[in-house]
């Protein structure tokens, strides 16, 4: 049995399960469509939220980012878990008590204004849209590798599957499929890590392996010390130190955390459980399930780095392991023999005067076009040749994408084929579950917040669900389009953007709406607008216009600017609300009321 057959079997079985669940628990009413009828158990909701939260990007690239940047990658690890602490103790129990189906609903009612609702709807749609584009692309890439089809058909097939169970099943359908998807992801992520931890350190738990001794090379040396030595020898920064400045690290982590706490598609997950105390319990489960993966990622990253360098650095190309050639074929690794010695050299930035370690000009390898002769395609050692200009300012010869750390790990460690098949299934589960969750929030934003609450208030229950299904189809069509024609590196940049936007708009608006009775419509709208405009402007200026790093405000990169935007939002909101009239009595009573945990009833949409 070949690897392809096994992949097909694993993915086929997992798909059969997802679709079976989706058909069995499809939604009938709007309540089931939006919030699964409010009767999901805290444990099931926890798993579903964890699956929703972990996207294909997290699943595939996070360990690679950790491997590449060591300590610096902690900002993602802490940002995307610490945000749940904020979300749980400051937001969701109160929003659940407020009892509405969507986040713009809360903003609109709390700030008694259609404008506020409109701003919130636009933000929600923008945030979800940027996210879902990346997911569709991810699904397409995995499918294309798997079945040898083009990325375009991969994206379309993925889109069809997502539409089938998110559009038809509603929240109820996707919640139960996500439970299954979480299980697939968790096994797929941890099993290879356990095998590798045993091989490298003799420990079963990867997390223990990370802090114990490296035993694979004969005598035992502390694992992280070995990694630090390898890194500095080859000219990289010390693994456990990193090179980001403290203020940047602080701002980026804070922006990611506050952004997480303001993401609409995560918040609505907690509207599916029965009452406030179940929300708290469910949040515990969610973070626990997320932590399983996030605590494994640093171990996978560190192991993969050691493995990769041990196996490839100074090895002759002809004797290099088979997976190097496989990844060359798919364009995820590339080798240029700069010094013409037939051996692979991997060096970091401090090995050259120029301070770079680029193998070639440009960000990604490009290859000769179809009509090229054999001499242009294959080098004298049998390596795949590139069309890029060679960067001769440094001695580094090996290029690889961030994504291969997770995908190549089982190959590098020589694990059995079924582990690789499981990993493929996990990867698809990660992309599908996130895409489905986002699609649902998108369709709800359009059908409920835009159609029902703003444009056409006399919509009936049935019509609303129909609109939601139409909206999810349209949203998906747009996402598929951008999945096929990604605005180049736009996606990676806009995802960071989504967090900055959520941190500088939703997070302060929700927080003040819950904890300050005095906060009024004028203050909140002014705050949101200032926060968004500042963040938006800063990111656009530095990412898309010609801003240079030495113009950064206090040295803060666009990644972390959402934190500053958030502070601006708070300050402006308080100043403006101090000089404008207090909110009406009814709204003040409402704020009073959401702090009383009992009597939340079922989440309604009226």
């Amino acid at each position, binding site marked *: 049995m070949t690897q392809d057959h096994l992949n097909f079997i694993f993915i086929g079985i997992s798909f059969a399960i997802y679709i079976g669940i989706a058909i069995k628990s499809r939604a009938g009413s709007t309540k089931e469509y939006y919030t699964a009828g409010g009767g999901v158990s805290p444990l099931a909701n926890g798993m579903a939220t964890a699956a929703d939260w972990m996207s294909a990007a997290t699943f595939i690239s996070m360990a690679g980012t950790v491997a590449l940047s060591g300590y610096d990658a*902690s900002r993602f690890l802490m940002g995307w878990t610490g945000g749940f602490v904020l979300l749980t103790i400051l937001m969701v129990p109160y929003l659940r008590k407020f009892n509405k189906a969507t986040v713009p609903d809360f903003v609109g009612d709390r700030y008694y204004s259609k404008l506020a609702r409109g701003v919130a709807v636009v933000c929600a749609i923008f945030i979800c849209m940027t996210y879902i584009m990346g997911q569709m692309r991810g699904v397409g890439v995995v499918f294309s590798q798997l079945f040898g089809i083009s990325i375009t058909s991969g994206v379309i097939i993925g889109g069809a599957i997502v539409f089938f169970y998110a559009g038809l099943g509603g929240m109820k359908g996707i919640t139960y499929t996500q439970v299954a998807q979480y299980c697939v992801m968790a096994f797929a992520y941890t099993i290879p890590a356990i095998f590798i931890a045993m091989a490298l350190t003799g420990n079963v738990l990867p997390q223990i392996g990370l802090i114990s001794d490296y035993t694979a090379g004969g005598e035992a040396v502390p694992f992280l010390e070995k990694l630090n030595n390898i890194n500095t020898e080859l000219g990289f920064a010390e693994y456990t130190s990193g090179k980001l400045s403290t203020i940047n690290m*602080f701002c980026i982590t804070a922006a990611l955390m506050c952004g997480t706490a303001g993401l609409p598609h995560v918040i609505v997950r907690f509207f599916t459980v029965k009452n*406030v105390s179940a929300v708290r319990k469910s949040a515990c489960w969610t973070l626990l399930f997320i932590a399983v993966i996030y605590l494994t990622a640093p171990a996978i990253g560190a192991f993969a780095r050691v493995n990769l360098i041990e196996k490839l650095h100074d090895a002759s190309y002809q004797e290099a392991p088979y997976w190097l050639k496989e990844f060359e074929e798919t364009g995820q690794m590339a080798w240029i023999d700069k010094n013409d010695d037939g051996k692979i050299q991997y060096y970091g930035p401090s090995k050259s005067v120029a301070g770079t370690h680029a193998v070639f000009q440009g960000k990604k390898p490009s290859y000769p076009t179809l009509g090229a002769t054999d001499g242009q395609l294959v080098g004298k050692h049998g390596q795949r040749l590139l069309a890029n200009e060679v960067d001769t300012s440094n001695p580094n010869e090996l290029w690889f994408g961030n994504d291969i750390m997770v995908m190549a790990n089982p190959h590098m460690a020589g694990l059995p084929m079924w582990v690789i098949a499981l990993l493929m299934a996990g990867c698809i589960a990660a992309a599908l579950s996130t895409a489905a969750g986002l699609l649902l929030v998108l369709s709800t934003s359009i059908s409920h917040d835009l159609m029902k609450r703003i444009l056409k208030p006399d919509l009936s229950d049935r019509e609303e669900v129909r609109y939601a299904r139409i909206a999810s189809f349209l949203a998906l069509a747009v996402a598929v389009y951008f999945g096929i024609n990604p605005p180049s590196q736009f996606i990676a940049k806009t995802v960071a953007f989504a967090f900055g936007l959520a941190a500088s708009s939703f997070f302060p608006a929700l927080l003040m709406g819950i904890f300050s009775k005095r906060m009024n419509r004028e203050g909140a709208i002014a705050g949101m607008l200032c926060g968004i405009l500042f963040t938006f402007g800063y990111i656009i200026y530095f990412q898309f216009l010609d801003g240079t790093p030495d113009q950064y405000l206090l040295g803060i990169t666009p990644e972390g600017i959402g934190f500053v935007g958030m502070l601006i939002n708070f300050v402006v909101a308080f100043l403006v609300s101090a000089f404008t009239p207090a909110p009406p009595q009814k709204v003040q009573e409402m704020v009073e009321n959401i702090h009383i945990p009992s009597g939340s009833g079922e989440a309604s949409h009226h």
Partner: protein
Amino acid sequence: MKDTPSHSHRRACLRLVLGLLAVWFSVSFGCSILFREWLDANAPQVGSAPFGFWMAQQGAIICFVILLVVYAVLMNRLDAKHGYTEDQ
């Protein structure tokens, strides 16, 4: 402002939330970012990992999970004490 049960409940909740946030801040921003270098050099190692580095990649996340468990237990207890129980 008179001291109704709902006010004393709200004050107690706020105290708890602020306490938890203080812990949250010190394990993530404190140990893992602001004082990391000092801790790496001076605090005892965790296994073979420098303390600040370990906090940033493992310890903080473990603390987050514990924080949420503590929050759920204490909040439910507070609710019960002030008569806001709900049938499960």
